[in-house]
């Protein structure tokens, strides 16, 4: 009698629960992830050992690029109903007697860092081509005659009272320029800055102590 051969079957694992779990995880991560917004300029930050992370909301950032251009950014706040950016633009508009339309204000609310004189702001908001937009980014003027950065900082401080200030400077910028920004901030009663850096581990132990000189 021939042996009864059991039918050859490929082992099959039911992957449905695994897929379910993965889907949930994926959706969760997708929703919670906050993508890094497009920044106006490429800035290589200096390195430090500091492990403190920047606050993810209520943060005002001043970018100091290598070429000396200064950019500004403020977020909409932790609460989605606050719309700090839109309010700020309205206030600045009043200050400089520029009337922004509702659409322009709404558009500004969704954008991130910018660096251009206030007079170009309207054109910039209405430009669609990103290349033309970049051309308008000439840095926020901060001369003593027309210190627009100071206005931005002042109005932003009044709009979002709890905002912290971060300075993101390029490693190769002149300290003179960063100092100027810091002085300007101190004039506006900001005495605590967050300097944005890259993490670099460095450890010094007791062994590194130089021998005591007698």
């Amino acid at each position: 009698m021939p042996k009864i051969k059991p039918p050859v079957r490929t082992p099959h694992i039911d992957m449905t629960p695994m897929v379910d779990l993965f889907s949930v995880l994926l959706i969760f991560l997708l929703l919670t992830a906050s993508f890094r917004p497009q920044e106006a300029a490429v800035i290589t930050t200096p390195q430090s050992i500091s492990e403190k992370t920047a606050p993810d909301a209520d943060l005002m950032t001043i970018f100091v690029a290598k070429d000396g251009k200064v950019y500004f950014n403020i977020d909409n706040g932790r609460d989605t109903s606050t719309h700090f950016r839109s309010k700020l633009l309205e206030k600045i508009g009043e200050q400089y007697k520029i009337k922004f339309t509702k659409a322009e204000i709404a558009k500004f609310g969704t954008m991130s860092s910018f660096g251009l004189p206030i007079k170009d702001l309207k054109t910039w908001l209405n430009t669609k081509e990103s290349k033309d937009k970049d051309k308008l980014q000439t840095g926020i003027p901060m001369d003593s005659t027309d210190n627009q950065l100071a206005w931005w900082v002042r109005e932003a401080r009044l709009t979002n009272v709890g905002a912290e200030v971060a300075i993101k400077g390029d490693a190769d910028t002149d300290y003179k320029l960063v100092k100027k920004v810091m002085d300007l901030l101190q004039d506006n009663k900001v005495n605590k800055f967050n300097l944005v850096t890259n993490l670099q581990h460095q450890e010094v132990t007791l062994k590194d102590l130089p021998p005591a000189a007698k």
Partner: protein
Amino acid sequence: MAEIIQEEKGKKGGKRRPKKQSTRIDMTPMVDLMCLLITFFMLTTAFSKAKVMVITMPDKENKDDKDKNQPQIAAFRTLNIILSEGNKVYYYIGMADPKKPPLPALIKTDFSKDGIRKILLDKNRDLFTKIAEYRDKRVTGKIVVADTTLDSEIKKMKRDDKKGPIVLIKADEKAKYKDIVNIIDEMAICNIASYAIVDINSVEKDMLKNAPK
């Protein structure tokens, strides 16, 4: 597409039955893709957070009553660090007072391990040893404290320190932003209790001109 094919029962005989097809879908590629995406998101969300270094500057308005309220600091405890062009670091100890010659000589050093760090560690020996020993004890498990307690303990040690240097950081006009960040970082590495960023004065500018290149 997966279809559910119902088995027809009770119809035996001549009619050709449709071929029995499996209702299972092979989910392996889907799982692969999901794994990849999940790993990607987990990694990017964790690493995209920017790190910051906090510095607090003294209030500018207090500058007016500087002469009255400024604490008197011993000259031998002050370590002046001057940053200059091309990542150069100079330092001198004490005060540069043109009325009391001779002026202290500027000593040139750099940002390397054996540069300014050696000087800072040497000056800050007591406090640094204290903090390092405390940390060691924690790592080896001799004492069990929370992170916050550790921080406050270290802060307390720094506050009580009476021997360590008082570092005055001065930057020349040609210094880069990187240099300032590096030197503040050095302060953190060496556990310096008191340091401040101050403006360079004209005496020091003159000293810098005659400093070794």
